[in-house]
């Protein structure tokens, strides 16, 4: 374990000093790598560890983005505080969804449908509320300052998203070691058996979905203040919900480093191929490439790339006895 700690600290150190050597464009790619790793990790808390598949996690991104932006525009509240408001709202919605799903025993595809329905309903509601910009969405005014969570240049975003990613890693590590983590894994493996052993499965399912939603909504606040434009279709839409689950699946579902590994592989691939194909007038082709990679991984590495990374790293990281 000790060598792993040194190895990880080294990587973190490299990531901290890396911006000194990178231009703004490459920094932007790293921002997206960290961002998607963070969102994937947030989703992983629910689906990777409890096994309940959510295909509506865009909902929480949207709720975080809209709540903090609304509070900033109407009340002048800093997104730094707005993210907690957004988190509470997102967790509240997640608890309601969870109550319906877990209390009434909706499992498997029925739970999936429930998560999609919640995201779609919210998308339609937001599309029709004038105060939230309805169909045309909300443009954020660009007034860079720390208070406004807006910055010119990618450097501050780089460190914020890096902090988010590392923070989520630490949070999930703590969860993994705790009672909560052991119980939600038991739920994933066999919910009935967990109940029979005295685990209040309803309570721990609810905790997991609330934590997952809270974390995801913070990503929404970041996203809003990074791209400065909120549209119901892009913030609550199905394509975002699917986009955000690809990295943890490719990296390794229900593992601590899976979402991170998945993001380091897929995000640059998606960003670079997008730019490359767009130059040749083939916009959208990057999604095809992306899809092929996802299919290959699911076919040949169903447990994710992390299995191979560990097979390579574990022998190197073994402590001398």
């Amino acid at each position: 374990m000790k060598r792993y700690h040194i190895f990880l600290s080294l990587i973190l150190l490299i990531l901290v000093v890396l911006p000194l050597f990178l231009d703004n464009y490459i920094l932007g790619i790293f921002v997206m790598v960290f961002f998607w790793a963070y969102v994937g990790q947030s989703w992983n808390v629910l689906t990777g560890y409890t096994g309940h598949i959510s295909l509506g996690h865009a909902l929480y991104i949207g709720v975080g983005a809209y709540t903090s932006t609304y509070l900033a525009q109407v009340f002048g509240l800093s997104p730094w505080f707005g993210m907690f408001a957004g988190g509470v709202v997102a967790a509240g919605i997640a608890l309601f969804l969870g109550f319906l799903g877990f209390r009434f025993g909706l499992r498997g595809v029925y739970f999936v449908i429930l998560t999609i329905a919640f995201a779609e309903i919210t998308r339609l509601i937001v599309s029709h509320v004038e105060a939230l910009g309805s169909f045309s969405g909300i443009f954020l005014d660009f007034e860079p300052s720390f208070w406004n969570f807006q910055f010119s240049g990618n450097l501050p975003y780089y460190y914020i998203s890096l902090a988010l990613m590392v923070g989520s890693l630490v949070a999930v590590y703590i969860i993994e070691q705790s009672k909560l983590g052991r119980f939600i894994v038991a739920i994933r493996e066999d919910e009935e058996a967990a109940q029979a052993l005295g685990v209040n499965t309803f309570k721990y399912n609810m905790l997991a979905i609330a934590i997952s939603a809270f974390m995801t909504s913070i990503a929404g606040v970041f996203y809003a203040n990074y791209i400065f434009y909120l549209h119901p279709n892009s913030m609550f839409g199905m394509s975002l919900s699917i986009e955000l689950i690809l990295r943890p699946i490719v990296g390794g579902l229900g593992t601590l480093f899976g979402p991170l590994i998945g993001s380091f592989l897929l995000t640059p691939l998606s960003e670079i191929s997008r730019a490359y194909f767009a130059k040749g007038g083939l916009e959208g082709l990057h999604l095809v490439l992306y899809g092929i990679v996802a299919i290959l991984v699911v076919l040949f590495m169903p447990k994710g790339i992390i299995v191979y990374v560990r097979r390579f790293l574990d022998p190197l990281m073994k402590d001398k006895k």
Partner: protein
Amino acid sequence: MSNLIATDITKRFGGLLAVNKLSFELAEGEILGLIGPNGAGKTTVFNCLSGFLTPEEGSMYLGGNAIKGLQPYQICQMGMARTFQIVKPFPTISVFDNVMVGALAHGTSLQEAKSMSQDIIESVGLRKMRDLEAQGLPLPLRKRLEMARALATRPRVLLLDEVMAGLNPTEVDEMIDLINQINQDGVSVLLIEHVMRGVMALSQRMIVINYGEKIAEGVPAEIVKNPLVIEAYLGKEFLSAQG
């Protein structure tokens, strides 16, 4: 003193009467065998007792507290644990982590739970398999794991659902020793079993059910001579051929 009392429990599945006014008591420190032909309703009785099903009628008390209508986890926390006939290990986590879940669900600290799980794993003979994934275990060891997890919840009453099915004679003997050991440590056991050698060796008393109804109750020596029991297992023709 009785540890577990069931009075007139009745469970229907639509038009099928799975358990019909079944009453019994499990005394403190007792091993009670529950037998009956296939489909007699034994596992349904277990599901009612452990909270996975709620009987339409009747009452159930564990150590003086009513348990009817409670959730399975609540009943487990009150001191009654069960195993499943079709074993339900947590497949992709280690044997040790499987047992940890049971230990942790009962309010112990992480450190306590770890040492307790280690003790239990050794007492059921899974020490060498401690770090293996549960899905890699052969059936006899999975049955042991099932027992180990249930024991980790520190039950006063243990419901064992066919823990000897599919075991060879040597393994049955080992299981008998293990259950006796658990019983001597102060756990009352309600045992569903088809392996007659096992249930005869272990049970201090037995009850026999058929079509959800109790048809006999008594010490094992009496039960095997009871004409109703023989009829239930072997049919009327067998009796008339004998007589």
